[in-house]
């Protein structure tokens, strides 16, 4: 169903006056409206681990060491402030 068709179907429902209970009572409409979201979620479910090249893995380790180093620096700074 195209976005225009879906929008047309939705517009016939008088959206502004609909309550959550009324929407819940129409699961077929909910399924139709959230089709894109459901398809994306399915696609994500199929995702597996990304192969990491040596360079990328090295970069990630470098960034991790950067954080650890900086935490040590902040600790030194806090000690300096206290003194």
């Amino acid at each position: 169903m195209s976005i225009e068709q879906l929008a047309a179907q939705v517009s016939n429902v008088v959206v502004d006056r609909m309550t959550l209970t009324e929407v819940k009572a129409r699961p077929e409409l909910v399924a139709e409206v959230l089709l894109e979201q459901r398809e994306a979620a399915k696609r994500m479910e199929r995702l597996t681990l990304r192969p990491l090249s040596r360079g990328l893995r090295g970069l990630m380790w470098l960034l991790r060491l950067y954080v650890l180093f900086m935490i040590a620096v902040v600790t030194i700074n806090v000690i300096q402030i206290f003194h």
Partner: protein
Amino acid sequence: MVSDRENAARALDRMRVLDAKRKRQWGKLLWLLIGPGVLVMLGENDAPSMLSYAATGSQFGIGFFLPFIFLTFAMAYVAQEITVRLGAVSQAGHAELIYRRFGRFWGNFAMIDLFFTNFLTLLTEFVGIVAGAGFFGIPDYYAVSGGLIVIFLAFMFRRYWSWERMVLGLALFNLVFIPVALLSHPNWNSVVYSLFTFRPLPSGFGSQTIVLLLADIGATITPWMLFFQQGAITDKGLSIRDLKQGRIDTALGAGLAALAAMATVVATAPLFVHHMDASQFGAAQFAQAIEPYVGHVGATLFALGILEAGLVAATTISTSSAYTFGEVRRKAHSLNLPFREAKPFYFTLFAVLVLAGGIVVLPGFPLELVVIIVNVIAVLTMPPAIGFLLILANDKEIMNRHANTLTLNILGIGVGVFISLAGIIYALTVIFPSFHL
């Protein structure tokens, strides 16, 4: 994992969006779709951030830092726009994508960074609430309790949409710093001159200046923002077709937040002009110190602004922690769910809030030290977060044709390099105290 109620609530929101699109009601459409971007940007104008801006204005006046703040928000836009695309394309949270694509080992590192910085930041939000309320003579315990009640009330709606509108209304109060700036009667020629020239420059970039520089960066770009906005985009149900409005939302948020931040610098600049030493000031003291220049109304607005900044950020930051916890543990995580259907989500949310609030009222808690250091830590944990963000944004299996372009990659890498270099300069000033740029 997704309940009927959650789906129905999201579908109702989506139907309103589709209806507005069909009727070509562009104003209504924008109203329906703005939220996550404005919330994340104004949420990041939190108590320690406003305090950093106030310290900047009082120690350096109107000059280099005014356009620098604008620049940091431009960088924040670059990072946050990626989360809009990631959220809309994948309909998954940031933590979920990190775990799926990088595995538990790297995912755990990212989560430790996030929860650590989030909790420290939450502490400072309550410091802001206490300081803002302190201006009105409200004791710490009542300030924290009152803040917790307001935040809890926001979560009682059991609808993302209602929660978002309430917090959005509260967040817009951040703009209160603009009238405070106007009340300080700034020299507009100097403001315009500094905006376009980055001048006058601070006299030497020593340790104190670098810490403020880093705190101002940390006041605009932090890891929680990535997790929150992507989670909110997913909870709201924004789709690929809404990317344009998502970008407008983020740009609008960045613009408003930059205005409020720059206004705070302008509002406290009289302290610099009158050579008042504000280096040890807390939030309430700033409000009292600027009273001779902005009047009682201005000082009151300033204190209220700090209080509001703490409230909004406490709400958004605790939500980002709860979204992330739900994504990682594969538990229901949506503001569209009632408490009984998402107990771990709400428990995480409320537990971190109560714990942070409780710690802040402990006697002898080093309030000012935590406030100064928290923005610095936030910046220092940002490079790996930017790294994950860029790798995900270039992941064709997730993004398809919405992957980063070369220009966006250059901008994104530029932001990462800039933040990393700022951190290295900070490290140099700490390890070699005599180091100056």
